[in-house]
């Protein structure tokens, strides 16, 4: 279990995402790095992890390789159940998904996500400065999975006090019972993984709280890159880097073509744009 000294920002995110997942639980997997992280979890500590994809696959073994789309043929081979989008979201709305694993372009301190538009909402809705792909299934997973795991690239403008558009509801305004009162199901954001660390949401205030910073970061450097005041867990600690074996598995076994985990000679946090391949 030698710690790797040669991993990329995407690779530590994948390793962190995998560790958050629990064996024998059902995870509704969004597109992009969540697929890579789920496969890593399944091939390490969580062989009984049950993937669900929004295009309709339930429980595939994922033994024909990493899907590059959540509707990919690779998600259907060997699955226990194959339907369409309505069946996948209906079973999630019913309560079958223990985790939802999604990403966004922008996040606020309550774990609400934006993946719709950069610009002025509502006035500039029809003429966004940057038009993102839109919710896809993310807002549905956020509304109905029991707990959600969020992936957001860390950047002061993207970890923001006020979102330009709330695509996927998190803890809303953080008030007690906010999700229940809004008609949502599930406990909401459980963990957030960024390019700088891992966060939970403090029980009372529902505010984002740093629990692990990645190697090379400090509590201060993470706060400095965050556009709102972060809470910090009393026992916040450095996250162990991925092991050499984990990095090898990601590069050789799971994503050998670099569909989602880009090949890089060195760590290069800043140039990674997580929003492109995600839904």
């Amino acid at each position: 279990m030698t710690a790797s000294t040669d991993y990329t920002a995407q690779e530590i995110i994948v390793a962190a995402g995998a560790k958050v997942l629990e064996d024998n639980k059902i995870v509704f997997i969004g597109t992009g790095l969540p697929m890579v992280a789920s496969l890593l979890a399944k091939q390490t500590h969580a062989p009984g992890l049950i993937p669900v994809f929004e295009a309709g696959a339930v429980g595939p073994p994922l033994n024909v390789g990493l899907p590059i789309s959540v509707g990919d043929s690779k998600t259907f081979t060997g699955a226990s159940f194959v339907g369409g989008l309505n069946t996948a979201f209906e079973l999630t709305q019913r309560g079958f998904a223990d985790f939802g694993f999604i990403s966004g372009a922008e996040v606020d301190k309550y774990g609400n996500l934006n993946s719709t538009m950069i610009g002025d909402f509502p006035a500039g809705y029809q003429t966004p400065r940057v038009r993102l792909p839109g919710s896809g299934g993310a807002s549905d997973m956020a509304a109905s999975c029991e707990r959600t795991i969020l992936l957001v690239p860390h950047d002061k403008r993207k970890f923001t006090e006020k979102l330009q558009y709330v695509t996927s509801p998190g803890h809303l305004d953080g008030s007690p019972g906010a999700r229940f009162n809004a008609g949502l199901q599930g406990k909401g954001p459980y963990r957030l993984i960024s390019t700088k660390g891992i966060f939970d949401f403090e029980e009372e205030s529902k505010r984002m709280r740093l629990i692990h910073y990645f190697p090379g970061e400090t509590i201060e450097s993470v706060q400095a890159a965050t556009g709102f005041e972060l809470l910090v867990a009393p026992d916040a600690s450095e996250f162990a880097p991925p092991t050499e074996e984990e990095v090898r598995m990601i590069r050789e076994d799971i994503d050998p073509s670099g569909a989602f985990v880009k090949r890089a000679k060195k760590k290069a946090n800043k140039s990674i744009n997580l929003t492109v391949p995600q839904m």
Partner: protein
Amino acid sequence: MENYAEMYWTGLSPDEARAALVNKDKSMKDRRMTLKEAVSQFIKDGDNVGVGGFVNIRQPIAITHEMVRHGFKDLTLSWQSAGMAPDYLAGAMMLNPDHFSIKRIELAYWGHEAFGLSPMFRFLAERGMLEIEDWSNYNMSARFKAGSMGLPFIPTRGPLGGDIPSSCRTKIIDCPFTGRPIALLPASNPDVAIIHVQAADQYGNCIIRGTDATCAEIAMASAHTIVTCEQLVSHELITQTPKDVGIPFVAVDAVIEVPFGAYPGACRRHYYFNGDHISAFHAGATEMCKGGVPDTLKTYYDEYIYNTKTFEDFIAKFPVQRLIADQKAESFNCERLA
């Protein structure tokens, strides 16, 4: 609850959608025709077109090419998550909005997952050239489902709590049974559905492999449905396994056998993605997004769409080795004996 007088429908209202079906010939008749006949007979300017498939899986690419060749004005396009199908239509609009134009889109996602953003969407949206109505995947799927069920609306939890309800026609009510908020989504009943499937018989019974996406719902919700299929098979073969039929003939108006009809996207059991071609197609639109000239995009359309008469000609432009490689890649995904 808001006043229903504020409501507007795109495509057909629930009562119009009912009337359209009542007056339709739903008999078990031969529905084969050419793609050109189907597109000119069942799509018209101003229509709401429901787009089948999911992202780049089983998208009705051949149908969109024929639509581009034909030219349409002021279409509304409705789907959950789509990639190349609306890209082809949007690219035509970028080049010549007098020949082809999209007025409005109702969607959850327009992009390409591992293959990146849609430069066509960015171009049109960021210039305000489209009316946009954002929903989620479940929202759009449930709206088609409501339409397919003959209901004016369907409840979901999906759009609650965020800004989606402020940018679409959702109505949030207090549930009359529990008192908690619940969203009511208005049905979507497109004028015409465009769908690609793995197999169909001459009457329109369709077999779908892998994700059903929302194809059955879109077909059942729409006033008319055009289906392309990889394989046209006998009714006797289809009815040996009637539970494999995802869309029954009663919902279909036109059946056309078009091998590779979802290419360069993927189609389970037939071919995997051709990501290189997706990128090559995007190159010209990306140039225009950055303020460049339309030349590259125009060259693509001329070569691959306008100067080809049929989708067979488009497919013939690919190197045989590449087509076989994409078939082989898919046969690895679902290994079976021939």
